[in-house]
């Protein structure tokens, strides 16, 4: 049997084959089908299933998990009615639905859905965070009816790029800096259609939070997804959630990767994504001193316990600069509770931050809008013009530590400089 990568093993199992190789086009059966409700999609597909396809029931409801995390909390009757429709439909179909627990991609991890070697799909690209547990993910945007109704979808087996990591992050440098650096090196299409597999001692040194922060943005170098092969850390996280023992799925030792990049985390410098698009990566040092009006710590790409704890360390005993607006939105209810109990949120409130319960709505600009001419540092997922209000407002994507440091000064600031 020929050597296979983790991803190839997952696609072989889910397609019923013994071996597969890059370029093979297969029908595969996903293990989990995740989705959030969003107008124009979910209610439209529910209608198509019922009225065009004449199906009363989805064939694999046990594979589905739905989340209400956008338009949350609803503002106005229209949004309330929309969620009400989703709840009724999920109940009718026998589908699990979670709401009020936070951003679905994070809640999925907390529910233990990121099982090693599982194939997990979602209508949204940021499902890639579940690769932190060795799961393979595929995002759909407009094609989800195929797996919803048929229980299978087609995939071309991707090539795998080995991202070999050494060392440990220095304080206040982390997963966001790593993925921004990878985008800087590979460019917007350097990983096109491929899987980024994170290997080496450095990968095992990364926390679950840092792995998820890194994976959330891998599509911006063109990658299909990213994956950390499960190790003791992720298997322990998972068994605590599921009460079960899980086994890791790993690439064969002699497998041939498409290419390999090596990074020493201990010498990694902070990196950012500058306007106007998520491919515009730059060393943070090139942006230092840029005037900033607003900061956001949250989203499925950050807003995790370590992000909030780091921000609190930076802002402890300080006040954010007068006139600066700092929004801190823990990514899930679990994170909210833990950072509340640790005192980190109290520190941020004392420094002048606005704290919200978890929701996606800050990330895509439903709230925290900016005016023309303003600039933000954000841990959100995207920085395209208009994402946070005016199309003439600039968004710099950075780490949570950089947001906290910049909140002190009102300028883009290296978080390592604040405490030195």
């Amino acid at each position, binding site marked *: 049997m020929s050597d296979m990568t983790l991803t190839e093993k997952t696609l072989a199992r889910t397609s019923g084959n013994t071996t597969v190789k890059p370029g093979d086009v297969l029908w595969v059966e996903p293990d989990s089908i995740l989705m959030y409700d969003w107008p*124009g999609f979910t209610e439209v597909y529910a209608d198509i299933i019922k009225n*065009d396809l004449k199906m009363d029931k989805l064939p694999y409801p046990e594979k589905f998990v739905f989340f209400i995390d956008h338009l949350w909390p609803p503002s106005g009757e229209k949004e309330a009615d929309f969620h009400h429709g989703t709840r009724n439909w999920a109940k009718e179909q026998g589908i699990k639905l979670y709401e009020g627990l936070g951003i679905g991609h994070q809640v999925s991890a907390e529910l233990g859905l990121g099982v090693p070697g599982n194939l997990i799909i979602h209508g949204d690209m940021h499902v890639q965070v579940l690769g932190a547990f060795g799961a393979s993910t595929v995002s759909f*945007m*407009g094609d989800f009816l*195929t797996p919803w109704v*048929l229980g299978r979808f087609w995939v071309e087996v991707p090539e795998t790029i080995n991202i070999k990591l050494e060392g440990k992050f220095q304080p206040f440098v982390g997963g966001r800096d790593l993925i921004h650096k990878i985008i800087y090196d590979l460019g917007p*299409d350097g990983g*096109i259609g491929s899987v980024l597999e994170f290997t080496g001692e450095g990968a095992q040194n990364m926390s679950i939070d840092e792995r998820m922060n890194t994976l959330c943005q891998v599509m*911006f170098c063109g990658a299909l997804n990213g994956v950390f092969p499960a190790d003791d850390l992720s298997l322990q996280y998972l068994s605590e959630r599921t009460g079960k023992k899980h086994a890791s799925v790993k690439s064969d030792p002699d497998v041939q990767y498409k290419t390999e990049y090596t990074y020493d985390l201990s010498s990694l410098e902070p990196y950012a994504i500058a306007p106007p698009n998520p491919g515009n990566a730059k060393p943070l040092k090139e942006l230092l001193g840029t005037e900033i009006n607003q900061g956001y710590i949250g989203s499925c790409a950050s807003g995790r316990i370590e992000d909030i704890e780091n921000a609190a360390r930076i802002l402890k005993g300080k006040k954010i600069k007068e006139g600066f607006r700092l929004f801190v939105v823990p990514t899930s209810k679990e994170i909210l509770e833990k950072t509340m109990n640790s005192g980190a949120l109290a520190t941020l409130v004392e420094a002048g931050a606005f704290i919200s319960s978890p929701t996606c709505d800050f990330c895509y600009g439903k709230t925290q809008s900016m005016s023309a001419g303003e600039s933000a540092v954000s841990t959100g997922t995207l920085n395209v013009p208009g994402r946070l209000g005016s199309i003439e407002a600039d968004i710099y994507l950075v780490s949570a530590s950089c947001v906290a440091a910049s909140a002190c000064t009102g300028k883009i600031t290296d978080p390592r400089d604040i405490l030195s």
Partner: protein
Amino acid sequence: MTFEYKGQVAWIFPDHYDVDQIVGIQNIRETDLDKLMPLCMADYETDFLSKVKEGDILVAGKNFGYGHPHFQAMALMRKIGIWAVLAESFAPTFYRSEVANAMALLVVPDITSKVKRFDSLKVIFDEGTVYNEKSDTSINGVAPPEMVLGYIKHNGIIGFIKDQLKTG
């Protein structure tokens, strides 16, 4: 079954193009296509809609559909009558989503250097070949997988799924 597309090159997009710019990112929360139609390509050319014809073809560089693409841009193109895009490569999620809408997305290496705007092209999609009538040259693309042809053959995902449910 052969899928042929004949038309002029309506526009040539650069590398890493975010399709939301077709309607303007500031308008992306609008989902009513009739309201968006006058804005289609208006940031580039105010009379684009009068120059484009049913059957026209879009051409693009590498990584077309990069970013976090929304549905409106390609839905508008289909409403205009554009059903084919030739690009040097496509962003993976964009590709999956739009072929499901029966858009004929064909990977054609170096296509941006081989055609000019308003050239008349003939595309044989299932073979992955392009013929430029203006320059009388043939260009080889990458033939799409059989599953993609299924979406085209059945005019998109609903017809495709109906067929799959019927044939098993």
